[in-house]
């Protein structure tokens, strides 16, 4: 049996009169890049916020690395092993790049007030280990030379990478990236793609929410497509691209008879 990292089933979430999610479920295996796509307002971000604890779902079951978890508090979810990035980058702008990643180690370290005040040996060792790991992660995502720069002074693409490094610092079971390519130019996208590829090769698991269909199709092992809060397709990128419902959701009805539906990859350029 394959090693399942995240298994969620039957998630529903209603905001007043809007059924944002109805009965959504997916299973992510270790080492996969799992894509979650859908047109604007399809419920991608709602789904994301539900599994990361920002919203409380109306129903649904959650299982992370074989253990059930309830996404009730955001910080508990990070502790359980889901690290996320944000659609509109949320770094700690006035802290240095290194400090940003060091914050990511918070959840896997334990020194407290007394350790800090008296500089105990345990505290010093832990602190050195945190700094070392943070520097390794900065090098890993390719911004090692910006260690002492404040996060807000980095370029857009580097800020994205810093956010990924910070997420990796929490030793996550699953890294959830919320539209990492948003606002990137094509060169930056290539670099991002290489980075995600590298993270996958290190046997980490990624949930990718993305608008950029080309990126998703090129990277992902499996894809789920949402539309109006419903799951309309699930499978390999190849199958999903040919799914009638997906094409319809992205491009609308075809007036002609079947057979000439355009490739969904062009959907992003409309």
């Amino acid at each position: 049996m394959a090693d399942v990292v995240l298994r969620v089933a039957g998630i529903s979430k209603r905001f007043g009169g809007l059924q944002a999610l109805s009965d959504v479920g997916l299973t992510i295996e270790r080492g996969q890049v799992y894509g979650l796509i859908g047109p604007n307002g399809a419920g991608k971000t709602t789904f994301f916020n539900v599994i990361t604890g920002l919203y409380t779902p109306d129903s649904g079951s959650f299982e992370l690395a074989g253990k059930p978890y309830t996404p009730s508090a955001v910080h508990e979810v990070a502790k359980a092993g889901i690290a996320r990035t944000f659609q509109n980058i949320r770094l700690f702008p006035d802290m240095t790049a290194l400090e940003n990643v060091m914050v990511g180690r918070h959840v896997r370290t334990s020194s407290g007030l007394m350790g800090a005040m008296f500089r105990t040996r345990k505290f010093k060792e832990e602190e050195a280990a945190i700094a070392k790991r943070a520097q390794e992660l900065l090098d890993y995502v390719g911004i090692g030379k910006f260690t002492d720069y404040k996060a807000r002074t980095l370029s857009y693409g580097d800020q994205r990478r810093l956010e990924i490094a910070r997420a990796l610092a929490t030793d996550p079971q699953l890294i959830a990236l919320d539209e990492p390519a948003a606002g990137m130019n094509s060169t930056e996208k290539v670099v991002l793609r290489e980075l995600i590829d590298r993270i996958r090769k290190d046997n980490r698991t990624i949930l990718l929410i993305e608008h950029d269909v080309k990126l998703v199709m090129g990277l992902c092992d499996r894809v789920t497509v949402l539309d109006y809060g419903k799951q309309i397709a699930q499978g390999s990128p190849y199958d999903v691209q040919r799914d009638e419902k997906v094409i319809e959701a992205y491009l609308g009805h075809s007036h002609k008879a079947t057979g000439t539906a355009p490739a969904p990859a062009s959907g992003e350029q409309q």
Partner: protein
Amino acid sequence: MINKQNKTVVWVLAALALAILPLLLQSAGNFWVRIADTALLYVLLALGLNIVVGYAGLLDLGFVAFFAIGAYMYGLMASPHLSEAFPWFARMFPTGLHSSVWLVIPLGAGVAGFFGILLGAPTLKLRGDYLAIVTLGFGEIIRVFLNNLDHPVNITNGPKGLGQIDSITLFKFDALGIPGLNLGRALEITDSYSINSVTLYYYLFLVLVVASVVICHRLELSRIGRAWMAIREDEIAAKAMGINTRNMKLLAFGMGATFGGVSGVMFSAFQGFVSPESFSLMESVMIVAMVVLGGIGHLPGVILGAVLLSALPEVLRWVSGVFDLQSITGGRLDASILRQLLIALAMIIVMLLRPRGLWPTQEHGKNLQQNAK
């Protein structure tokens, strides 16, 4: 560039200067040492508030409450008030409660810290302006309590305040017959030379300030400090990184309050008298101003801000006395008016020219200047 050896020299010189300063001031008059003492107490307060406002980014406009709690706690534990108000108390402690400083400092820190957490708890979901308003309210509530808790049971003696508070005695061992060093009296070195009481207090306060600076500095460079700053920078991102923001905020409130409490204990021992008047909203505002004016979140800046804003009014008082402004202007301009005028002006100018404070953190990140060379 400063190398390590030069740095040590600078530190030693600074320490010597701080040690000699009160002795020099003392020869000019106790008035000057008193200013230095008050400045040190304010530094202590500003350091405490800096943890809450500077590190964790929680705007607290009621910080003086913890100062008041520390001051009244010591006031009750070291004045005859409780014995006078409650006969049973007088029977229990026939000679009165004369608490040792080694008990009082941790206790003051603890009680204030407890109240810090207690008052912080209801404000956890608030931020920015809303938080400021609620903390402002709490600050006033404490003062109103102190002002009115003289009946039905006389605990705080109301607006009359607590008097005859013991001065602090260090190194006292009754069992060994060592009388200890009473900071309330001048220490006579020779017949002609003595170190005044205010100067002795200066050294005690200085030790406390140095200890506080070390604690703050260490916290700043720790896992806890980083968590506080992460909350300040972006609370949602901090949560997503697994930081329990509720506990961390409470910790910041509690930790900041302990400094206020210790400062209050010292204040009440130093003055020998406390009344609710000393803990008005204006004090809270001044402490916030010290932190902001100096450089929010940056220890040297905060210390500078506290020294400037607490010493400046007193110096101006002296200036206006020397030039006898009152008679020059026919009574229209006296010391207090001049003081407020100049301080307001100074704050406006500083905020216009240096919006990040007089001595803020480096703009672009650490060590970059050195690397560029």
